[in-house]
């Protein structure tokens, strides 16, 4: 009898283990900051919450774009000095998660690398959502090729490299762009993200715009890459593949590429000049982008001779009728004001003055 009981326990354990595994697999939809901090006591002693409002208190919860995470964390630390009672929790999780959380009212603002897609609009139930651009940054095309500095690439060639058409570094198409360089016959290893990402979304958007007809894999946060490509988790994962594999090429956020000292290619922009990724060339691209009245824009493939063409942007999305107006206003005005000064140090690019001014003006629409 004893024996039988032990076996039953083992199987019952199996059921509960499977249940736990499922919870772990599926729970990311609504997890996180549920009702953790309902203390919305944004004591609005500062009235309309101008640009340098002190004495704001309260807790703001946010989630979304991982591209913003480094900036948000730096800003959360820095704002403690002027507003010690303002607590901001930025959860990351990805732009899609941020927008879903904002739509369901779980968070007070959401970081997103793209405007709300048409198929998600219904989820917001008619609420007025304001876009506040907060950060821009170049996506570096980094490579590992000893002896080759200042590699030059254009859209169609990059597209052919990343869809697997160009297989070796001494391909005529690459040679034509780099007449002076001695290119080895090393095989090209494509390094790409294994997780879905705004970086992939914007990089593929660049390929769609700059190589029409050549790039056929579309634009999305996940691409069906050639099966011999190598996937890494996060920018760091792609970084380490490029770093450890001679002949590898990958797309990485500039701040990560810079931090791990990777070689970065100069990319041909829509005006025909080759531009290296940097904070200033990214700001130039954003300044040349066409900004819509709701402050959405795309700096990818922007015009202008000094624009870096693979530049992307990220917004903080706020419900105009938020219950924590004072705290949200105070935090956003910090991000758009003094917070911008943190960006170059983190290897992001600050907003160009024209966009920054428009975003600051829009703060008054938060009621």
């Amino acid at each position: 009898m004893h024996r039988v009981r032990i076996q039953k326990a083992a199987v019952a354990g199996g059921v509960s283990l499977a249940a736990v595994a499922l919870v772990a697999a599926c729970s990311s939809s609504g997890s996180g900051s549920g009702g953790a901090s309902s203390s919305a006591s944004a004591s609005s002693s500062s009235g309309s919450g101008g640009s340098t409002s002190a004495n704001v208190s309260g807790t703001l919860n946010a989630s979304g774009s991982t591209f913003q995470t480094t900036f948000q964390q730096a800003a959360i630390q820095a704002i403690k000095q002027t507003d010690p009672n303002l607590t901001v929790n930025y959860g990351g999780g990805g732009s899609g998660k941020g927008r879903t959380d904002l739509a369901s009212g779980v968070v007070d603002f959401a970081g997103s690398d793209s405007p709300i897609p048409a198929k998600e609009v219904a989820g917001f139930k008619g609420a007025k959502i304001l876009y506040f651009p907060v950060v821009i940054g170049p996506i570096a095309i980094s490579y590992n090729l000893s002896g080759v500095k200042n590699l030059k690439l254009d859209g169609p060639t990059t597209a052919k490299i990343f869809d697997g058409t160009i297989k070796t570094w001494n391909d005529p198409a690459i040679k034509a762009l780099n007449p002076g360089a001695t290119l080895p016959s090393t095989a090209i290893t494509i390094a790409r993200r294994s997780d879905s990402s705004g970086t992939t979304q914007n990089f593929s958007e660049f390929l769609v715009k700059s190589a029409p007809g050549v790039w056929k894999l579309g634009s999305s946060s996940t691409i069906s890459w050639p099966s011999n490509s190598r996937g890494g988790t996060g920018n760091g994962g792609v970084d380490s593949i490029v770093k450890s594999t001679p002949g590898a090429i990958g797309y990485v956020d500039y701040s990560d590429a810079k931090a791990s000292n990777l070689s970065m290619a100069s990319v041909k922009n829509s005006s025909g000049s080759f531009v290296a990724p940097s904070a200033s060339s990214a700001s130039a691209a954003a300044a040349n982008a066409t900004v819509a009245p709701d402050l959405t824009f795309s700096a990818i493939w922007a015009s202008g001779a000094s624009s870096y063409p693979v530049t992307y942007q990220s917004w903080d999305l706020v419900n105009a009728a938020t219950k924590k107006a004072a705290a949200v206003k105070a935090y956003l005005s910090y991000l758009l004001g003094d917070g911008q000064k943190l960006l170059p140090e983190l290897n992001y690019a600050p907003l160009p003055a024209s966009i920054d001014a428009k975003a600051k003006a829009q703060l008054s629409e938060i009621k």
Partner: protein
Amino acid sequence: MSTATSNQQAGPAGALGKRRPLGDRLFQILALAAGLLVLAILILIAVTTSQQASSWFSAEGLSGVFSTAWNPSTNKFGALGFVYGTAISSLIAIIIAVPLSLGIALLLTEVVPRRWSRPIVYLIDLLAVVPSVVWGLWGILVLAPWLQKIYTSIGNGVKGTPVLGSLFGPPVSGASFFTAGLILAFMITPIITSLSREVIATVPVIDREGAYALGATRWEMIRGAVWPHSQAGIVGSILLGLGRAMGETIAAALVIGSSVQITSHLFAPGDSMPAVIANEFGEASGTFRAALIGLGVLLFALTIIINIIARSVVARSTRRSRGA
């Protein structure tokens, strides 16, 4: 779950017809509530996930869901590639882990003296507490680059050979079905080992000594006395390990290579159901999100089926061994 129904048969003290004391009634309510809560949570998970996944099923249809095409940029969400990856990586894990685990379990119960087996048990249990993300990171940073070299030389060796060539030939990648299977095998070995060790330990001493008395060697004793007694429990523990391997998320996500394909090449990168959920949920919306949740529902259904099979296998062989 059986707590709610089985408390009447033994007949606790207390006259019939009289109200039972408050403590008893409270206990009954508490036990019933605990049992029902588990059931309620399971049903709620099933209902909400199916609900959120419904737009996937309606958008893709049955043929779309069970197709191999997965391409979010063109709104194609076929699940078959992930089901295949989950099946293959768990199968590799089971093939590696079962002989290893049973070997260790028999070593600990039948070969090694008791005072030496204790420290070995502690060591194996320590393997079970290594977090899965640590397994995954170790797998991708240490094991995969090393395996890549081995895969490459094996791949070049068997290239062109009929069966071996299509199983182990190029293309090879450090992050692959096989690497994932290997990591999963490491992760489920402690579970299978400790459960089957406990099952084997319940074999009556009298049976073992009887077998020896009849002149059996150690192997004959294990086959004749230990195996019939512990068969059901061992099968149960293997299926438990299989369930764990199928549901393992983050370790698989890191080492499987994240490339959806159905191929016979075990050293090629693939993808599994929990891995793709973990990797792609953050940026997903609309049908994409529904499809990922739907993969969770499929995985849920698969693990339930595995558990039902496990139960019936255990029940059947328990009946048989009791009859013998």
